[in-house]
């Protein structure tokens, strides 16, 4: 029986999710091995990396290769033609062609499946038509990540089986509920609030701003609910980035990971205590 099973939950947050590599470093240094990884949106990339056992240094390099500005190519011209009605915009549309992003993810995850991980991995996406949560735990990891990171309007939704899926942050930005349902006792949850705008100077600024507001409010409500109602130990790891970091600001990645590690270190003694079953009361 797995008593005190530790899980790592990584919420949505674009490039900020790399902070979870800091957590992973801090845990492995202490010999604390998670029994499960759960990821949402950008966090799904790192949950998969951790579950596949990719070393932190290698993972950092992968991150630098993954998030570069060319993944956003074509954005402005696509937006203009979509808004002026030149091109129809349907559920299959997107403002960014996902080729570059997809090829990069493919170079990391290739044909790997959920059965290749060293411990259970769960990735959260949202059913496009109903908004319901979908937990992906089998099949190709690449497909699951592609679905989970399908930021509304920016990347097109992704079909898995019969379901059309979009960004997990639309339903469950920090999916501690999945870890609870899968039997975790100790949950290290790395969560982020989405950046909001100070100025709204374009239509997409408005949509991303509103999406961020909603996602942040959903994050707070779900966290408050699960924290209050369930009996698993939930340890929120909230890195402090001092200054705002843009969603795709790769130059900040070493700093992001370092801050993640710092935030995690504060909680390590408590996690160790919980894992060795010492009564802290």
């Amino acid at each position, binding site marked *: 029986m797995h008593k005190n099973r530790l899980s790592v939950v990584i919420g949505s947050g674009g490039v900020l999710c790399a902070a979870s590599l800091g957590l992973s470093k801090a845990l492995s240094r202490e010999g604390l091995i998670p029994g499960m990884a759960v990821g949402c949106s950008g966090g799904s990339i790192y949950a998969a990396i951790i579950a596949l056992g990719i070393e932190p240094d290698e993972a950092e390099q992968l991150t630098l290769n993954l998030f570069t500005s060319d993944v956003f190519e074509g954005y402005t011209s696509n937006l203009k033609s979509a*808004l002026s009605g030149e091109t129809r915009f349907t559920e299959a549309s997107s403002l960014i062609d996902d080729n570059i992003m997809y090829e990069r993810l493919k170079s990391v995850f290739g044909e790997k499946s959920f059965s290749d991980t060293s411990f259970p991995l769960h990735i959260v996406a949202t059913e496009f038509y109903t908004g319901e949560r979908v937990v992906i735990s089998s099949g190709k990891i690449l497909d699951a990540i592609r679905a989970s990171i399908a930021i509304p309007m920016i990347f097109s939704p992704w079909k898995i089986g019969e379901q059309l899926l*979009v960004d997990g942050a*639309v339903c469950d930005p920090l999916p501690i509920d999945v870890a609870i349902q899968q039997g975790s006792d100790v949950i290290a949850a790395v969560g982020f609030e989405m950046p909001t705008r100070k100025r*709204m*100077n*374009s*239509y997409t600024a*408005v949509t991303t701003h509103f999406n961020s507001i909603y996602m942040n409010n959903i994050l707070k409500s779900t966290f*408050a*609910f699960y924290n209050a109602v369930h009996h698993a130990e939930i340890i929120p790891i909230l890195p402090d980035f001092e200054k705002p970091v843009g969603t795709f600001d790769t130059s900040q990645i070493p700093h992001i990971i370092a801050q993640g590690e710092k935030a995690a270190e504060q909680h390590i003694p408590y996690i160790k205590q919980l894992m060795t079953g010492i009564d802290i009361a």
Partner: protein
Amino acid sequence: MATRKKKIALVIGAGSVKCAAALGLWKVLVQEDIHFDMIVGCSGGSLYATSMALGFTPDESAENTKKLWNQAVTEKRNWRGLASAFLPGIFKFNDQFSMIDDGPMLKRLRMVFEEKTFADTKLPLYLMATDLYTGEAVAMHEGSLVDALRASIAIPYIWSAWTINGRQLVDGGAANPLPVDVAIREGADIIIAMGFQSPFPSKIKSVSRYAFHINSLLTNNLYQANFAFHNAVHHAEIISIFPDFDRPIKLFDTHEIPYVIEQGEKAMRAQLDYVKRLLES
């Protein structure tokens, strides 16, 4: 020792035309001689909450609705706003962006609620809005009713934000779609909460419908997460009244109002015995 009279609150959540179901609920309670001690409204629900709090009868409130919420208020497109969406430089895209000109809506709000303020209500009234920049929930309880209503119903993308005391406010649904917490905080013992799911556009064929679809998914998930928390953690009795509609009711389907009211009446009647028992206990 005399038992203190139990305080009853009505909370009407966001739901545009569907909020008219609150009139059905109200009719049932008036017949049973059950009276509220406070009313809380959000977005579309604010219109009914205000009408009730001012002492209009259910029939008068239904009449008011016809004046306030109909196709005419959306007739006037905000061409400048729409143009600024795809030529942001020339048409000065800013945080006042909207697709609909709010002139007709404001005119109607003033026609019904005139210069009245929160001080004119016969029952304490709280209206919910969201801070445009921080996403925080703002419960309004003083000042002009027209201002508070205009802010509370500022549906993202459709109407622009509204400034009150230097703070830009939008639709309360973006932070707190069914604000039972306000009633809890104001000391209600029994809370009758009427909530609704947001409708989806029937077909996604443009960027704005896409944005609106995502917005509905987010609102619904926020609504569920938020309500789950308050329902689980607080000790006031929360009686949820979720009317059943056998067909989709869209944002401006005002011709459905009689049907909506009827369904609200049915949903309330189903819970009536329980409410009575609580009042007697």
